[in-house]
């Protein structure tokens, strides 16, 4: 029986690309990706016949390393690049220097920091991370981010080119100070990667779960590294706490379920426990970040015995703090919902009507559905009917429409 797990090839791909890029420079990123693919393909072809090697990772590293140096040699870059390798010419036997586990982790962490270059558009950072660190192909990235393959391909090509531009920080050699400066950008990209899976309308739960898990894996890597900080731990906590509820968010027919409708026994207790541990770990230092607050809110929901018995006062307060840390009308809307649970629909409505929403929000289903719900509960029947019609008209998918029909009873 094979000892190789289903994620083995993707994990090894990420390790190989990061390790090779570190040794040969980001300039050869695309060649490093090719070399990693070549090594994996060789494994697929030979291991079933010869048996799996005793140390599969070392075997792959040797093959990929040789494939890359071979390619560089043919490209005539040999002199320049091998010189930086201290003149050691790699060959299949003896194998290139064995790498330590901690070194491999550091390679990947730095690769993550390379991808999250603030000079790149956030979509490009995301695509690059999915390609190099999660081992997804262009087609797989396109499918997961609802983009065309050509667009993803172009995005990646442009990103690689930008990484090679003059004057870009050399992250693989950079000190901890430089890494710390880029840390917020890395956290923002991981957060986006997670929401791609968590809030995605992708029909396949497995795919959404996979994106969430990749974000968690990279987040844990960051939080455990010496460049990690309390905000990184809070980010990891919030991702675990949200993932705990992922499966319960959809009903049997695949439709979306509201928090109040979800079967709480379907929430994953391991994820909740893990999230609470990371939340405890994040409670150091004096910075209260949006990740801390969002993790705090998710923890309140996760620990509440039922929708009714939720500590809505605490949640409303956390959203209020969140509004201060990161100004978004969405936080205000959520605060209004918590307030409505705590002190009644009128209190929620008052908060929502206190300030005019931006156009993008006013025209969204989220806004009209929330108002329809609050107005109905506050006894404003005419207003409720008006917002209900607006919400149904702007529902982006059948699943959302169904949810609205169920939720916004006349």
């Amino acid at each position, binding site marked *: 029986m*094979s000892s190789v797990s*289903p994620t083995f*090839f993707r994990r090894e791909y990420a390790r190989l690309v990061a390790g090779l890029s570190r040794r040969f420079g980001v300039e050869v990123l695309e060649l490093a990706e090719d070399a990693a693919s070549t090594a994996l393909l060789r*494994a*697929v*072809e030979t*291991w079933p016949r010869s048996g799996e090697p005793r140390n599969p990772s070392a075997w792959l590293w040797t093959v990929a390393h040789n494939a890359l140096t071979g390619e560089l040699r043919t490209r005539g870059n040999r002199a320049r690049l091998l010189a930086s390798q201290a003149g050691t010419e790699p060959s299949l036997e003896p194998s290139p220097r064995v790498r330590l586990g901690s070194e491999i982790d550091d390679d990947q962490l730095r690769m993550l920091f390379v991808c999250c270059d603030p000079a790149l558009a956030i979509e490009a950072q995301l695509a690059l991370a999915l390609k190099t660190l999660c081992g*997804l192909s*262009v087609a797989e990235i396109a499918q997961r981010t609802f983009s065309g393959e050509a667009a993803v391909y172009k995005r990646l090509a442009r990103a690689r080119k930008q990484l090679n531009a003059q004057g870009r920080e050399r992250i693989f050699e950079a000190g901890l100070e430089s890494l710390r400066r880029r840390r917020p950008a890395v956290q923002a990209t991981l957060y986006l990667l997670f929401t791609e899976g968590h809030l995605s309308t992708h029909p396949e739960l497995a795919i959404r779960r996979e994106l969430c898990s990749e974000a968690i894996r990279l987040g844990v890597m960051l939080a455990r590294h010496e460049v990690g900080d309390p905000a990184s731990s809070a980010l990891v906590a919030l991702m675990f706490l949200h993932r705990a509820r992922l499966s319960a968010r959809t009903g049997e027919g695949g439709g979306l379920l509201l928090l109040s409708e979800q079967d709480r026994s379907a929430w994953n207790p391991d994820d909740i426990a893990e999230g609470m541990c990371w939340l405890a770990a994040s409670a150091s230092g004096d910075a209260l970040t949006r990740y801390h607050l969002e993790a705090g809110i998710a923890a309140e929901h996760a620990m509440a015995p039922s929708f009714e018995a939720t500590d809505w006062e605490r949640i409303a307060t956390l959203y209020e703090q969140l509004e201060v840390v990161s100004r978004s009308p969405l936080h205000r809307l959520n605060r209004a919902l918590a307030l409505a649970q705590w002190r009644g629909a009128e209190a929620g409505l008052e908060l929502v009507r206190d300030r005019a929403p931006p156009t993008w929000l006013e025209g969204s289903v989220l806004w009209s559905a929330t108002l329809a719900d609050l107005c109905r509960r506050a006894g404003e029947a005419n207003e409720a009917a008006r917002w209900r019609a607006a919400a149904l008209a702007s529902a982006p998918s059948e699943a959302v429409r169904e949810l609205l029909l169920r939720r916004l009873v006349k």
Partner: protein
Amino acid sequence: MPKFLCLQRKLPSPDSANSAKPSPAQMADMYAQFNAWRERHAASLVDLGGKLGSGKVVSAESADGPFVEVKELVGGYMIVEAEDLEAAATIAGACPGLVRPGSGVEVIEIHVPGA
């Protein structure tokens, strides 16, 4: 039971030239499928063979070259034991990755004197 030589034939295909390498997830699938196929037919797989490398022609007289190298036509080989040609072709044809655009398999019975 008769044995059969299975040759992976390189076939002309419009797609094979620019086909991208499979993704790591696809490779994991290929690996799992190949292992499953191998385990299912373990009793029939006499020799899983392998890819062909470079070779040399040894002949009695100096024939006029150049010859078409066998590896230009044949990618690899394996030996299968089966009831008949049909059964052998079924086993070989089910080998993951063998029958696809640009690749096929030729199954040939090996006649052993006295067998």
